């Protein structure tokens, strides 16, 4: 079963951290949304794409030992919720570091990495991960 279109649709947002800002209330959202949960119908056609800087701090995190099938070669891996400089919380991996060095409040920045592969010969899916600053 090919999942190419499903991942292709989100590639811009995942490669460049593109969210949406509601021009009615000014709130910025990531992941992108077509409808602002604060303004609802007032936000229709007022959601404008905006790129996030990728900088932020660790809001919460965990070290995963019992991982998903696709990620079992990476165990143990760090999953975190990052509070971005611009406001939205983003969920993703923190890589290239010792888990002991990650704390709530640690400064991070985003980086583009391979996330998963579709089977042995399928497409490689890329996306953001975070590294300590």
């Amino acid at each position, binding site marked *: 079963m090919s999942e190419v279109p499903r991942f292709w649709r989100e590639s811009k947002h995942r490669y460049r951290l593109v969210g949406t800002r509601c021009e009615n209330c000014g709130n910025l959202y990531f992941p992108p949304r077509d409808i602002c949960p604060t303004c609802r119908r007032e936000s229709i056609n007022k959601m404008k794409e905006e790129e996030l800087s990728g900088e932020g701090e660790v809001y919460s995190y965990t070290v995963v*030992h019992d991982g998903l099938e696709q*990620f079992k070669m990476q165990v143990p891996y760090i*999953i975190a919720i990052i509070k971005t400089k611009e406001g939205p919380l983003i969920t993703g991996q923190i890589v290239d570091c010792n888990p002991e060095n990650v704390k709530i409040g640690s400064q991070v920045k985003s980086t583009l990495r391979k996330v998963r592969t579709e089977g042995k010969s399928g497409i490689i899916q890329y996306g953001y991960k975070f590294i300590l600053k």
Partner: protein
Amino acid sequence: MRDVYIIGVGSTRYGELWDMSLRELASEAGLKALMDAGIKAEEIDALYGANTSAGQFIDQEHIAALISDYSGISELGIPAVRIEAGAASGGAALNQAYLAVKSGQYDTVVVGGVEKMTDVPSEVANEIIGGSLDAEWETFFGVTEASIAAMIAKRHEYDERVKREHYAVFPVISHKHASMNPSSHFKNVIKLEDVINASPVAEPLTVYDTAPLSDGASAIVITADKKKIKESENPIKVKASTMANDFLSLHDRKKIDSFKAVNKSVKESLKQSGLNLSNIDGYEIHDSYSIGSLIQMEEIFGKEAIKMVENDEYYFNSSHPLNVSGGLKAHGNPLGAVGLYQAIEATIQLRGKAGERQIKGSKNMLIHNMGGLGTTSVTTILGVE
């Protein structure tokens, strides 16, 4: 509007039941519920089937039709529909069936829940359970449901000065209670140190902080038919049934270590029943993760919830008996079925038939079933007059 009563309950054992298929589990529970209610298939107006993910666990969709067929009632043409709301499917099916009976559309309805989880390896099961999260913005990056629970725990410890012991105790309570329940997946008693020192799943959570993968099915019969209620030996009234929802993903919530939807559905159930917390004699909550138990109790009792941990108030013979069934943690966690087992445990308690784990003088029980971590919340209050 008319009153709705549970007049029959039936459940399979919960556990790794390799010799039983989904259809066998479901029909066993359904048949037991009908026999307990003392009614025949001809008297059923509709079947509501709860199931979370059979399409992925066993490649089978159209579950309600399958259950109806293999329970031998197809010739009767009884309408059968599946309800899915993550792990809250059982509670949601009960809610939908309750509304249908309350409205007068149907008189007597069977609500059954089933999940067959142990036909796949555990990594695959993790992936399927993760299906209740956001596939594009959480699981895509390697997020498991346990990792979401773990991040709630970390932030809760950080913001609220909660200690590990304040939530590690919930599995200990559930195992103690499960040891007294014959249909439990686990019957061993564990200690606080066992929970904290077990192998890690998503730090700080260990394997004992999380509910198991179980097979099982549970079913109940509800009715508003006056004759059936009168003939029933022990009818249990559905005093309230309410649902609420929150953002699907944790990262979209204003406070990640709270369950706003739980607060809302519990408050609405109390209002609907005309009861307050002092009238509730026991609680069955969705203890898929230890930290989830603490947050649910905080949404119900506020800061008191932690004092109640410290004072050992959650045991069956104490002031706020919690998960006397053994909960999802130790009685078992077949996703789509658990919301209905909660209703069965409450019914058994209210009938006074719970044996050594009986809550003395139990008149009202509050049960809370949850999909994801605080995403879908279903509260039901059951009681005797």
